[in-house]
């Protein structure tokens, strides 16, 4: 985790992580398209988001004394904030998005010191469940991308399935049967093979790459008039606070997974780096708001990739962060990386997500099991997955449930934590009775 690999190895591994990180650029692109924004606005939003995510990744992993986990756990544009940011943009434009993103970041930072107090709330088996659900949370974008879809209900092309299938197969086979070097770069190899195949078989993907030709090579991100100022609104404060809490829980899961992968010999959970990691996550979100980018979050898929390749040096995350910062000044390169064919993107997310899910399950079943844990995990899993299978059902529930039961990760975490406390009341009662006797 702390060793410094040779420069070439750092560079190639960070590019490998970068290829996963750029998949998150779809969030500012989608955000701008929902607003009907101009190309200049979109370019600025991507550039500022890259800057924020890059700075966040560096702070998270470089090993500063009071902030940052020191794990390979880079920052990307956070999907959790997408809906709330869009609502803020409607009400008050980018100034309000910036202001509310800063508020959300501050809430995340305020929550960080409390994480140590959560030790009893998050026993190992619940931590495992949270980590597994982090993997599940990327299921929808991973599968829709794998089938080459931009819109969920659109037609699926056989060629996209072929590209996605070949990419995933190359990644898996490189990981299973490759030499040490091939194993380390299995995702990069898969992406290169898949991308080449896509450009040969499908002119559309080649044309997406050619679009970068007209872009300026180097350009400083400019803050246009749409980004000017920072404003706040009490009306949408609660929404942002709730999302900040959910974002913290997600980052908590990511950091726990990163710790599990990076320090497998650790007995129990070491909350100090997780607290520092959450603080860095919050600060990165504040930076994103100040710069004018989308809110950032820790990346589940990159933690999964680290687990898959067993390459865990935090310097790779730092290098990926530096490249993200540099990329913000190269709009042509951003267009090239954003043009990664959807099936290749989907295969990469499935590959990384597989490790998240299995790491969580291994963690969950690593300790002795009993009926109480069965009900805590089982019931939490049922309610968590129900938000994905039956989203319309929750639209008819009381408002508080609609706010908390938003997706599988947040829902299963809340239900598991509450059930663990409730079903553990007998032990508390026994302890109290013992003291009384």
């Amino acid at each position, binding site marked *: 985790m702390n060793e410094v690999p040779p420069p070439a190895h750092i560079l190639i591994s960070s590019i490998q992580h970068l290829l996963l990180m750029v998949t998150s650029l779809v969030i500012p692109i989608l955000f701008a398209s929902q607003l009907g924004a101009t190309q200049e606005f979109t370019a600025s939003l991507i550039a500022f988001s890259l800057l924020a995510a890059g700075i966040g990744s560096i702070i998270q992993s470089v090993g500063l004394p009071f902030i940052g986990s020191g794990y390979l756990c880079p920052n990307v544009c956070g999907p959790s904030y997408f809906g709330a940011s869009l609502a803020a943009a*409607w009400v008050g434009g980018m100034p309000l998005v910036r202001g509310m993103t800063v508020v959300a970041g501050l809430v995340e930072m305020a929550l960080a010191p409390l994480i140590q107090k959560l030790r009893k709330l998050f026993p190992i088996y619940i931590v495992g469940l949270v980590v597994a659900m982090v993997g599940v949370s990327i299921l929808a974008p991973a599968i829709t991308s794998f089938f080459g879809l931009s819109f969920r209900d659109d*037609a699926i092309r056989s060629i996209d399935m072929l590209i996605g299938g070949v990419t995933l197969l190359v990644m898996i086979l490189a990981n299973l049967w490759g030499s040490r070097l091939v194993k380390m770069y299995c995702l990069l190899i898969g992406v290169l093979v898949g991308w080449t195949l896509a450009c040969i078989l499908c002119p559309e993907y080649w044309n997406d790459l050619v679009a970068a030709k007209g872009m300026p090579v180097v350009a400083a991100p400019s803050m246009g008039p749409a980004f000017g100022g920072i404003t706040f609104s009490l009306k949408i404060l609660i929404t942002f606070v709730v999302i900040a809490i959910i974002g913290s829980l997600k980052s908590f899961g990511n950091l726990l997974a990163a710790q599990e992968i990076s320090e497998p010999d650790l007995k129990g959970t070491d909350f100090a780096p997780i607290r520092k990691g959450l603080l860095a996550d919050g600060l990165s979100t504040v930076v994103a708001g100040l710069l004018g980018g989308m809110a950032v979050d820790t990346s589940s898929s990159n933690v999964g990739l680290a687990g898959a390749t067993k390459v865990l040096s935090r310097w790779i995350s730092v290098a990926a962060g530096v490249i993200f910062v540099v990329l913000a000044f190269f709009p042509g390169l951003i267009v090239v990386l954003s043009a990664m064919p959807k099936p290749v993107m989907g295969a990469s997310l499935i590959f990384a997500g597989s490790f998240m899910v299995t790491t969580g399950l291994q963690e969950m079943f690593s300790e002795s099991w009993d009926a109480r844990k069965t009900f805590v995990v089982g019931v939490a899993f049922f309610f968590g997955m129900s938000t994905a299978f039956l989203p319309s059902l929750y639209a008819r529930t009381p408002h508080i449930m609609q706010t908390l039961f938003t997706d599988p990760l947040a829902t299963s975490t809340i239900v598991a934590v509450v059930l663990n406390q409730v079903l553990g009341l007998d032990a508390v009662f026994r302890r109290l009775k013992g003291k009384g006797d």
Partner: protein
Amino acid sequence: MDEETPDSVRGFRSTARGLHGPRLRLALSFAVLAAFLVLIGGCASRYDELDLTMYKYRDTRNLVKFVYDASRILSRDGEAGLSYLQSHRKDFQTEGFYLYVYDAAGTNLFHAGMPELEGKNLWDVKDKDGKPAFQLAVQAMKDPSNPHAWVQYSWWEPGSFYPVPKASCHFAVTTPEGRELVVGGGIDYPHEEPEFIRIVVDDAVSLIEREGAKALTGIADPASEFVYRDVRVFVFRRDGEMVISPAINSTFSQTNLLECVDEAGQKPFVQALETLKSADSVWGTFMAKSPYDTRLKRKTLYTRKRSCSRTKRST
């Protein structure tokens, strides 16, 4: 001898030696495969002359290509082409859509999904909302702002009985024998393409320009092409007063549209008017809430101004 040979030359020889036999064959096979794939990828597409950039969804683009292919067969082979369609019926009915051919008078000549319609005249057939589907197709083919002659109506699936919303595109074909044909195909439960909305709003503007205030009755008619599924062309004045309501067939409730806010608290009509100060048309969005979804739903609003007559129309 080898000891005197420079490293680079030795390296080249060893590489060349290594490429003999099975390795060489393997490398050659890869090269041939790559060349084949490049050849496939580099071939010009038969759809190069079709502009499909205005469509967001692949389903829509696929349908236009599907109907276009059939129109090329008929314009090239004429009556023989029609016989070809009839003898290869299954090729012209996919899971998503099917092909049909009419003559200019509305008599069905070929229907991949409902062969029982062949030989029947459907000129006057109307859907459940009173839309004369074939007449609308003929009208759409003459409309320059509707390049693929889209028509929105209700129909039913072959072998079934319940109505399904449908969007069909059409191509006019003149066979080598000089016969005028209408070739079309439709998609059930179509995606809401912004292009569909642009077509009806632009057509409404043209109608008002041609007929003035008289056109408003036709635009508000639910049986017209200006009202379909949950889309409706409506008209309002610069001060927000409604001429045709976006929701009902009356303006009894004089809500001022400029005062209307969406679920995110924005005023979409105020924003649209602001942009229209320097543009002829504007695409906007507003957020709506469904009782069956926890998330807000994004809806599209296309607004065009017509400065000469104080009216604006949008969907």
